[in-house]
């Protein structure tokens, strides 16, 4: 056996630099905390700096490829998804600078956990090694459970516990799935698996399908694919609004990247079994997510179910397997990021730490009755986010929907395209329901400040950035899709 060579150049440290930076930032916060208790402003600043530095490091990776004993795989997809993860995090972080004091922000650990979580997801997307994926996934998830629980309401604790239990179950499924694939192919790297499985022409199909079922269940849990989505509304409701918005984006893009790497070659198999499975899952997810969102009374729960539906919508990109679809997937998610985070931030800005608006919900639809009369600016802002989520031109998500439905048509998935269109139509109903409440009903209270009582300058800034992006998205589509296109094509998807 040859001794392991430690060649620093061959390690290609660039590939791991962004994660090292986030991890370093997290450790720095923990160490500082040992010596001196500092204000949350400080932690926010450090976290922001760390994340911006990590983004910078991502742009420094000019030679895409493998590193760290070939465990790391930093290709175009990894770059885009890391940018989406960090971008969402940068937008999320200022939301901690609320007007009211919330308990979680008192702890330095909150910020450390947050950075650990990001690092976990970064690892998850920058490798095709199932073990590292697993590690990244669990690092990110464990940190996330803690973040949810730190919101320190009974509901938060409950939902964190539920999420944790189910997450553990999903982790088990993932491990089983990995095991089966390792058994078939003798490798834990997706690239190798692909070579082996395609090499012997999908001969072990039943076993492959067993493994695939495990993987679908495991990743389906992360992506809240029906029927593994049951945690979503409870957990979103338990988590603070920005964290819920964050959860609807970041862990999911990480999950999508893994799903893309894993299912892409399986879905393209000749018999089309996996493709059909994914088809059913995607259609079920977008449809059931939609019809459940229809009947919700709380805006947050509605948004939770609707983000399930959005995930189903984007799932279709994986089964289509064309470059256009993959570009559409990242494009959609980028546009969705700004819109959804904006919508959740709108809820956050109206939150009170202890008082709940009504017994059952923080944000029932009735809370927004006649909002335009008492707080027109906020109402218009909220309406813009809702219209964008509903996919109404020229707002952001419309372009994503257009791109994906176009991809479906171009790849001859006509029924899928039709179902996507019908679902988009159904979705308009519940998004506009909120708009109707805000614009056409009479106010339920006189005090307009209730809608931004938690507001501070950083929160407003985040909202403005999100709103401007949503409105001006028409101008960004061209360069954005071109950027994504080059990266996706470069990594062979």
């Amino acid at each position, binding site marked *: 056996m040859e001794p392991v060579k430690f060649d620093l150049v061959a390690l290609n440290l660039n590939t791991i630099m962004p994660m090292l930076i986030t991890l370093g930032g997290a450790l720095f916060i923990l160490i500082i905390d040992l010596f001196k208790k500092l204000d949350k402003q400080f932690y926010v600043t450090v976290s922001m700096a760390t994340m911006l530095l990590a983004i910078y490091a991502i742009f420094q990776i000019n030679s895409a490829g493998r590193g760290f004993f070939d465990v790391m795989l930093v290709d175009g997809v990894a770059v885009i998804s890391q940018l989406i993860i960090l971008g969402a995090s940068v937008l999320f972080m200022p939301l901690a600078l609320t007007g009211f004091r919330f308990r979680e922000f008192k702890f330095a650990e909150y910020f450390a956990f947050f950075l650990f979580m990001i690092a976990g997801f970064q690892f998850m997307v920058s490798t095709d090694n199932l073990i590292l994926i697993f590690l990244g996934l669990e690092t990110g998830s464990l940190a996330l459970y803690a973040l949810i629980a730190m919101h320190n309401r009974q509901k938060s604790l409950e939902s964190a516990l539920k999420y944790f239990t*189910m997450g553990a179950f999903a982790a088990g499924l993932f491990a089983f799935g990995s095991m089966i694939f390792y058994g078939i192919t003798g490798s834990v790297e997706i690239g190798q698996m692909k070579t082996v499985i395609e090499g012997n022409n999908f001969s072990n199909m039943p076993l492959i399908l067993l493994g695939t079922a495990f993987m679908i269940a495991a990743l389906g849990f992360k992506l809240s694919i029906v029927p593994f989505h049951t945690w979503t509304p409870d957990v979103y409701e338990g988590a603070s609004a920005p964290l819920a918005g964050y959860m609807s984006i970041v862990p999911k893009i990480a999950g999508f990247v893994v799903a893309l790497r894993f299912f892409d070659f399986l879905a393209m198999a000749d018999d089309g079994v996996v493709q059909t499975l994914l088809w059913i899952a995607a259609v079920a997810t977008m449809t059931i997510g939609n019809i459940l969102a229809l009947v919700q009374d709380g805006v947050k729960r509605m948004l939770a179910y609707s983000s399930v539906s959005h995930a189903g919508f984007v799932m279709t990109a994986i089964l289509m397997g064309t470059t256009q679809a993959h570009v559409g997937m990242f494009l959609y998610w980028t546009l969705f990021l700004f819109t959804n985070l904006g919508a959740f931030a709108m809820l956050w800005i109206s939150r009170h730490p202890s008082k709940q608006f009504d017994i059952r919900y923080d944000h029932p639809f009735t809370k927004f009755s006649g909002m335009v009369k008492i707080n027109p600016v906020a109402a218009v802002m909220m309406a813009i986010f809702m219209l964008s989520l509903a996919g109404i031109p020229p707002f952001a998500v419309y372009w994503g929907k257009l791109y994906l439905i176009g991809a479906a048509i171009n790849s001859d998935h006509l029924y899928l395209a039709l179902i996507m269109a019908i679902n988009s139509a159904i979705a308009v109903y519940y998004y506009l329901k909120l708009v109707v409440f805000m614009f056409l009903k009479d106010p339920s209270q006189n005090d307009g400040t209730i809608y931004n009582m938690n507001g501070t300058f950083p929160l407003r800034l985040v909202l403005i950035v999100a709103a401007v992006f949503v409105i001006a998205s028409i101008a960004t589509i061209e360069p954005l899709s071109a950027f994504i296109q080059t990266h996706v094509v470069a990594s062979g998807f």
Partner: protein
Amino acid sequence: MENLLYTALFAPLVGSIFAGVLGGRSKMMIAGLVPSILLLVSLAASLVLLGHVLSTGTAVAVTMFDWINIGNFNVAFGFQVDQVTAVMICVVTVVSAMVHIYSIGYMDHDKGFNRFFSYLSLFVFSMMFLVMSDNFLGLFVGWEGVGVCSYLLVGFWYHKRSASWAANEAFIMNRVADLGMLLGIALIYWQLGTVKYDEVFANVDKLDMTVLLWITGLLFVGAMGKSAQFPLHTWLADAMEGPTPVSALIHAATMVTAGVYLVVRANELYAPVPEVGYFIACLGAFVAMFAASMALVNRDMKRIIAYSTLSQLGYMFVAAGLGAYWVALFHLMTHAFFKALLFLGAGNVMHAMHDELDPFKMGGLRKAMKGTFILMTLASVALAGIWPLAGFFSKDLILEVAFVEHHFILYTVLLLTAGLTAFYSFRLVALIFHGEERYKLFGIHPHEAYRFMLIAMSPLAILAVIAGFGFKGDYFAMVTQMLPATEYHVHSPVVYWTMVFGTQIFVGLAIAYAYIKYVKVKAFDPAIESNFFYKLLINQYYIPALYEKFITVPYAKLSRFAWKQIDQRIVDAIVDLIATSIYKLGEVSKRMHTGNLSTMLRLMTLGFVIVLVIALALQMMAK
């Protein structure tokens, strides 16, 4: 020349926009003056264009920009002024300009003064567009524009129920006919791949006879609607609900003549299918007689004139149908002058009589309204076709055409109709201007119209006098450069002079009879009401009643049925059902989400099993 063409075409549009901007305000003199001046500009440009076409014999053509480019369907926004168009635009602008000036006085006290001029100029613009377009599609745009404007103007006093009803009737009936027209144009495009006149006419011989029959038939359906030919004629008389200057415009310049223009314009399509032409001629002769008969008994001054237009359009279609396109166009021109004059005169009378329309309640107005009396008498003489006024030249020509072409039945019908025309025209003149002053019973004090209104009418009067003998030669030389130059001569001089004098004497007798019968009338004689023919005629042969009974009422029932039974019971119900069932589905699946962790875990396991089962099942099926 191009700029002149644009000026002639777009000046009315500018006027319309100008008045339209002021539309919401109360009366402003400038809103009437500017469109009128712009229309005079348009008139001047049209006359220069006419001069150009006359002197050089070449058409002015422009392509403004590409209009439609879809696949290999290309239509440019093109306009042209050739011999036929030159005649049309001059007629249209002369009549319209005079009507505009007249309207400044006529609409003096109306609240919608500004709005009126906006519509009026738009009407003219649409008609100019119609006649100047160099392709069928542009013609269709103008055609529809004319339809819309007629709707706006007939229903100008929209607060009157009858006015809005008449506006709808005019619009809907034209819409029915326009469908035929549109189908005809589509057929042309389908067969020849173009809608441009030159290209279409150059390729007529490539068309199958049956197809050509369909094309000409369908186009004529469109013409029937616009020119109010039987059975689509009822709207024209009802359109009298609009302000009187509008009637003058519709009847003389901007609307009903469009149908005749279409047939003349498309003469090269009609030439190879004489059977269609013969049908058009027969229908025209029938309408001429039919409309004249209704005019005999009517007690509404404006309706009488309207029926007379219908009748004269019939004459034009006889000429066009028999291939004498230049004659048809000539009658169109002369008729435009004296009919506009007649209507404007009627407008004066209406104003004087406080909107009273029943001539039996007038009488002896010649003392109070000398100018109007002279002008209207002149117009009536021209209409009756007495030498040397305009009507004689054009109408006699049509009679000669029928005679020379050996259509003696048509000839007889038209000759009789000429007598009827003279009779009802002078029945009207006698009742309005002669005899006892019956209006005094109603306490009306008539007054003459503004002087400038009479001045605006005088050019029309001059044209009604001289258009026949003055223009015929030049006109013939010019339009026959593009229309078939058939001259219709009765070979035997004896027959010819007998015909001419015979007709004149016949018409003269009819006039004399009308005078004798109606000068001394004291009031309307109710005894006649029980007469069968009177009842038939006054009820317009019961055609409106038949339409009501067999078309309108059943259609309304059908619509109600479609609404109540099909739309509400079936379509709406299905839509609602889909919505509620989706919603219910949501309520049901909500129960899946109890928030109970054990249930959730079980569901996950179940999900895994389902995925596996489906996967294996699919695998089996794939094998």
